[in-house]
């Protein structure tokens, strides 16, 4: 086990009550501090279960899990509280922290909203925001608590290609600026290759193969992009 690893899974398995087969089994991998890792794989391969274990939303049935306490997560479709404004949604996690003054909360929230280009929409309710804007607020909420690890659960799956491309750029900018460890789940190989340092391909509940991506950003315009996509795709459809 390396000291640089913020997350370590060793032979982890998870079986949901009442299920005959394990959702994941013998899953082993490590994520270094500041790394951007993306899990890809077909539906039901166990990538979301893995993410939930990192988030503490599920407990492993067996194996060893090392993860920091301060983990935050952005969900599909933003998962915002409809009765709260964008500002209050982002402040949601901060208000759970003891001893935080209102002025500190306001400063932290506005900073996150500004970073994601949402400061002008701070008083709007989720119903008054587009899908992309909701997702931005969801990411701002996850970042506001200054997590050691930011988890992204298919955050772009419901967005149009233009908004997705814009959010990809934003995520990369945020990652470069904050040096956060990011673990993302996606069902799109292109998305994983365009964003992550490392792509972990999962199949039938376990880690199938791991790919290091060493392309400069922005990657989609890079010649090696399609090569990396094809090399993962070959395994994906094997």
């Amino acid at each position, binding site marked *: 086990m390396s000291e640089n690893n913020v997350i370590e899974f060793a032979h982890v398995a998870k079986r949901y009550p009442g299920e005959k087969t394990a959702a994941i089994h013998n899953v082993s991998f490590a994520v270094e501090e500041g790394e951007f890792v993306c899990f890809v794989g077909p539906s039901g391969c166990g990538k979301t279960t893995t993410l939930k274990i990192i*988030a503490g939303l599920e407990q492993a049935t067996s194996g060893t899990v090392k993860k920091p306490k301060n*983990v935050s*997560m952005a969900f599909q*479709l933003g*998962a915002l509280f409809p009765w709260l404004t964008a500002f209050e949604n982002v402040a949601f996690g901060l208000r759970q922290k003891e001893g935080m003054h209102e002025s500190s909360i306001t400063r932290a929230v506005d900073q996150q909203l500004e970073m994601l280009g949402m400061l002008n929409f701070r008083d709007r309710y989720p119903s008054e925001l587009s899908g992309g804007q909701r997702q931005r607020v969801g990411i701002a909420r996850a970042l506001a608590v200054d997590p050691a690890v930011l988890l992204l659960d298919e955050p772009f799956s419901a967005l149009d290609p233009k908004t997705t491309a814009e959010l990809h750029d934003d995520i990369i900018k945020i990652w470069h600026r904050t040096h956060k460890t990011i673990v993302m789940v996606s069902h799109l190989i292109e998305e994983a290759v365009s964003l992550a340092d490392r792509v972990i391909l999962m199949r039938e509940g376990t880690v199938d193969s791991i790919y290091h991506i060493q392309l400069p950003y922005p990657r989609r315009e890079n010649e090696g992009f399609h090569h990396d996509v094809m090399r993962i795709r070959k395994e994906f459809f094997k």
Partner: protein
Amino acid sequence: MWVGYPVSFAHRFYVFVLGPLTVLLLMYLAFSFYPLLRPAGQEVPLSTIIAASLFTCARLFIAYVLAVVVAIPLALLTTYNSTMETLLLPVFDIMESVPILALFPVIIMLFIQFNFLNGAAIFILFLAMLWNIVFTLVGGLKIIPKDIFYVTQVFGLHGWGYMQRFLLPALVPQLVTGSILAVAQGWNLIIVAEVLHTYIPGGTSAQDLFGVGSILVAAAANAQNGVFLGAVFVMVVIIAMLNLFVWQKLLHYAQRFRFD
């Protein structure tokens, strides 16, 4: 934040003018063709009918508050996990199916021991309202997206904070819908709930509760058409005002709490 409810002129016109006029016209026609109902007996002043209606409203209000206070924990308990749901839902189904009026004589006998007949009426109204709210809340809890529950877990929400910042706001739309159904059920039952003497062996009308329900029954029994019409009219006006100034506004307000 309170949001103004955009009520159209047509809506107001229907609620305040056409609605009561239609009821009055129908009542007039019914009396005209029903020879057994002839004007007779002592009349009751309108002020008494209004005062009685206020007593009725107070009973309904107390029963409603009690129903909400009991329904929320029951709904939360039912949806706490699948075991609780399997255990409790069939029990609630059976309890809801038992006709409330079948329980009324027992309830009256119980409350008569404490010389608290108002309690009997309130309790029967409470039972009538309770299940509407419970089942609507259970339905509401089941449609909250799973990711929203995960958000509360990720940010470590628990205890009173979980209730106050998440569960209670999330239940607002269903609470409003359940409340409308519950109060309507209460109005349906009010006549029986206030006319207690029919359920007491050897009972007299002196044991009836002062309210618009008992006035309606007494007026019908004594062929006091004017009183009957007046009581119905006051009741329709109260229900219309409740609809326009409370339920419609709350329905509109609850939209903000609805998950897409």
